[in-house]
């Protein structure tokens, strides 16, 4: 006859399971635009749907510490790359922490991401509050001396890299002009300071939101990628736009997601994470991948379509 476990053991086990569930499966999305599922896994992440000919990219933020977690994240990024050949990495700022001497460019960027750089993956940077402006000249960041810029890897996709630390009115005028001129189906903005974030340390940048959100809405931006708060968060769609915070590419502020913010569709603040994404037609599929290779969030987003 099998012995029944003591009641206290059962309760403890349930509590532990609850913790795991909280860490990995938080805040199931309710919005109609996002269909997400969380798949805890100890396997190296294999993103979805991984089709030939699709546009694939990764997103990384707040990473340039030179510390071991950053290097482990970089290894994980390459492990994912081997199964999911993304061509681009969008950097959402705080690319180099602390010293920014030539050896720091090496130790905090070139060495950890060497396998990706050697494979021909291109990094496109935006600058964070800890970044020296001279980074804009650094060739592997592909900023070509500009603090804000736009590029189109394919005719149907256009990215807008913004400078959110010292945003000047000229940038907003430039952005409106570029958004208006773009006929791309997918318009994706990336920059450092989040317009929406549940970060207890920083949180949403309301003032920046007042300026940028109307432009994003008016000109059909579908996705906004940011960092600054040191965790991963997918925000519930705001007026139809999906916002991501991917600020734990090297840094981590454990437990910093304010669970009462009401903003979080999915959050992960117990380990470093980065994002991979894939655009297939009108859908953008995404995975958030932890330092250990766990998929901590995944789903798909339908692009916004302006109503005539």
């Amino acid at each position, binding site marked *: 006859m099998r012995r029944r476990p003591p009641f206290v053991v059962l309760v403890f086990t349930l*509590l*532990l*399971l609850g*913790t*795991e569930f*909280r*860490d990995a499966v938080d805040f199931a999305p309710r919005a109609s635009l996002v269909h997400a599922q969380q798949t*805890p896994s*100890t396997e190296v992440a294999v993103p979805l749907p991984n089709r030939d000919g699709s546009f694939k990219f990764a997103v990384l933020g707040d990473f340039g510490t030179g510390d071991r977690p950053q290097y482990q994240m970089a290894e994980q990024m390459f492990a994912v790359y081997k199964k999911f050949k993304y061509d681009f990495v969008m950097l959402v700022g705080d690319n180099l*922490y*602390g*010293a*920014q*001497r*030539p050896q*720091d*460019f*090496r130790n905090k960027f070139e060495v950890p991401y060497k396998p990706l750089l050697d494979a021909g993956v291109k990094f496109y940077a935006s600058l964070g*509050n*800890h*970044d*020296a*402006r*001279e980074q804009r*000249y*650094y*060739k592997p960041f592909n900023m*070509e*001396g500009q603090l804000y810029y736009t590029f189109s890897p394919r005719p149907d996709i256009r990215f807008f890299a913004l400078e959110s*630390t*010292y*945003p*000047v*009115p000229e940038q*907003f005028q430039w952005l409106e002009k570029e958004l208006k001129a773009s006929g791309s189906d997918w318009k994706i903005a990336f920059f450092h*300071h989040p317009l929406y974030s549940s970060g207890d*340390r*920083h*949180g949403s*940048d309301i*003032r*920046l939101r*007042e*300026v940028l959100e109307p432009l994003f809405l008016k000109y059909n931006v579908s996705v906004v990628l940011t960092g600054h708060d040191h965790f991963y968060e997918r925000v519930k769609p705001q007026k139809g736009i999906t916002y991501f915070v991917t600020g734990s590419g090297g840094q981590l502020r*454990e*437990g910093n997601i304010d669970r009462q913010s009401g903003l979080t569709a999915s959050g992960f603040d*117990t380990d470093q994470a980065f994002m991979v994404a894939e655009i297939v037609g009108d859908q953008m599929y995404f995975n958030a991948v932890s330092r250990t290779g*766990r998929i901590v969030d995944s789903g798909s987003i339908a692009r916004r379509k302006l109503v005539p």
Partner: protein
Amino acid sequence: MWVTRKGVVSLLIPVALVIPACRRDIPVPASPPATADSPANAPATKRVVGPLSDADAQALATMNDRIKDYIALHQKLERTLPAVPKEATPEQIDQNQRALENLVQKNRATAKPGDIFTPTAQPVIKRLLATVFGGPDGKQLKASIMDENPVGTKLAVNARYPDIVPLSTVPPEVLQTLPKLPEELQYRFVGNRLIILDAHAHVVADFIEDALPN
């Protein structure tokens, strides 16, 4: 089952433990009648210095004049150097920066604290900052600034910004409150000092002690 130690600990800590919030009110000097929008109401598209009296505005004008002088010198010196390539190596970036640093330091050999943050402007700057940090978001703003902001760092006007000292956050609410700087210059905090950093030369152009209220 994958279990984090933090998860276990967090469950075992009595959740009923409530630590009373300790709030330290920051004394806010009386502000003169406003002649500009207050930072709280200012449109995000505008950098507004306020609230200001005419006397405050005149005090800050002395600082603006010094900034113009500094930038004129900076640009004159920078024009003598080859431009950084748009696709540069870290070494090229560093060489250019250090060359400009040397020129600035030679041409401002007698620079001293207060040359840009003029004595008349300093109390206004401090009052503006106290207003921001005394506001409802003051505590969070200060925490944001102190993130990676080392205390005890030695600074000198016209010296190179210490290579190993991180560049601190300067929240938009703070930037919006302070006089606008041209692209070449940045406000940064080092400890409780507000500095003006020559971002191209990586040189401390000037600083104010005790700018960040306790």
